[in-house]
């Protein structure tokens, strides 16, 4: 099936922060993302509760994992 899987802006907030990584929850309780600090671009020191934005598409299944 042809789907429009273009990237679009997604908003969320930081719900957990360590010296290594941040955990982000997407608004609407639409999932979570944990990324190392170096993948976070920030103009100030990040804190829990800070808003974040990224662009992503829907996720497509590529194999059955076997």
């Amino acid at each position: 099936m042809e789907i429009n899987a273009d990237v679009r802006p997604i908003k969320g907030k930081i719900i957990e922060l360590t010296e290594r990584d941040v955990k982000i929850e997407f608004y609407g309780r639409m999932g979570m993302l944990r990324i190392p600090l170096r993948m976070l671009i920030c103009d100030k020191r990040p804190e829990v509760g800070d808003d974040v934005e990224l662009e992503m598409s829907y996720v497509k299944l590529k194999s059955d994992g076997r």
Partner: protein
Amino acid sequence: MSITPETANQHKNDPAVVCCLTQEGTIISPADLEDPAIFPDLEDSGLLTIPDNVLTIGQVLGKKLIKTIDALTPITPDMIEGEIEEETKPEVISGNGVAEEETVSNAIGKGNVIRIHIEEGKGINLEIPAIVATATAVEPAAKPSEEKHELEEERIEDRVKRTLLMREFDVKEVRLGDETSFENGILTIRRTLAEDALKADPLAKKMEIDIITPDNKNVFTNTIMDVIPIATKVEGSIGEGITHVLSGAVVILTGVDESGIQVHEFGSCEGIIGEKVRFGRPGCPDENDIMIRIHVTIQAGTGMERKGPYAAHKVCDAVIQEIREVLKKKDPSEAARVIEYKDVERVGRPRVVIVKEIMGQGAMHDNVILPKEPAGVLGGRPNVDLGNIPVVLSPNEVRDGGIHALTCIGPASKENTRHYFREPLVNLVADDEEVNLVGVVFVGSPQVNEEKFYVSERLGALIEAMGVDGAIVTTEGFGNNHIDFASHIEQIGKRGIPVVGVTYAAYQGQLIVGNKYMDAMVELNKDPNGMESEILGDNTLTREDAERALAMLKAKMAGVEIKPAPKKWDQSVIEKNQELIRNAKK
């Protein structure tokens, strides 16, 4: 969007495409034309197709349009009044990005040095103080071979600043036993050391030591946190005097926390060791190395704080220290090889600096600078604690284990402690007789942009004060460190110093910022898909990458044109450039 007369001049050999609806009778000016820099984007999105008979910007400026054309129409001869001067064909970015061959150029550099760079023929490169040979500066290209003769006689002697003697002792076998010893090529490590070493840091809860022989790589490994050479000072401090080093055996440090989470959870490379390591890379074990695996379990949850990974490195270092004490006492006559490293001031040749950006975001994004023992931990200062400010090391200090890497992520692009110990770019530039390597600057990459620019500006000021004629900036990994990487290049470039950038970018790590000084870039990718391959050391700087970087810097310093890179990563550019270097060597 129209362009300025400056841009038009810069792109005078590029295709002429109108930016907006343009009426019949218009005398074409830069304001009517589209910026060639965005053509690749427009072509990708199907908005623009450039025909073969397109005219160049240089050909159309001042000419009268004889029909009304739509926005983004390439201008062809049938649209223009009068004859078109036959100039060079427009150069559509071809994507080979290589320095032109057969170029002879000269430039009067800083410090009254006349630089003559001749690539034609044997690639002779002469650097002479102006004061010695002002007469030859008149027509440098005329008789290169004769000049070479004259100049060699006048050459000023190099000045050796310091010498480092490295005695290598071959290891044939590694065993666990009752006492640590090294006799007849057999290294024995005290079994109970695994327990004693834990005293070095209470956060380290458990240690296991085992030996992986080269013929048995089919074993599971937890994430490899580091690859560490075993070396010790016998005389002098790091960078000078005498060092003993074991060859044929290296330490690999692996780690999990008490709840079983890999210490390097991000970019972990756990798996079968034979498949998860790119053997032979500067930072990796070699194919025939015996691996002394030190597996550390740290307190649950501390892997995400600085103190956790640091504890693992500290206890691992305690094990190595006991081996070092034995290695220190070895009779020099038993050494298999003796290598002499010299920090040399190559008088009259272009001053070159290598800038290595290291990670400083915290946790394992940290490095211990100048420990007491080569590649050790104790006595060194973590760059995070130093505020990530640039620190200068001599080439010998780097080659003598002046950097202990806590190694960041991911596995394919991180530089392990052994990488710095065998850093191919430092070795290549230090040994190159055409340049004068003045030092290696290590600058940390902090987390927050403001801090990044703070350290980057200090780097610019430092490089300015060093009075160099050229610089190579390298970084490991990818992510927000590319922001300061770009800024370092800008800080150096805007001071009029030729600068080359070296990084893994390819597909997954593509650069997120750029500036006009980033026109000479070397790609470290070796993965066919341009991805972080999760194979240790896969995309790190090798000897071949170093050769491309140095060749590009020499070309840039000599004023040779470096063609623009294609818009997207293209591995064939790397291969072509590498071939140029292979041919130049013949």
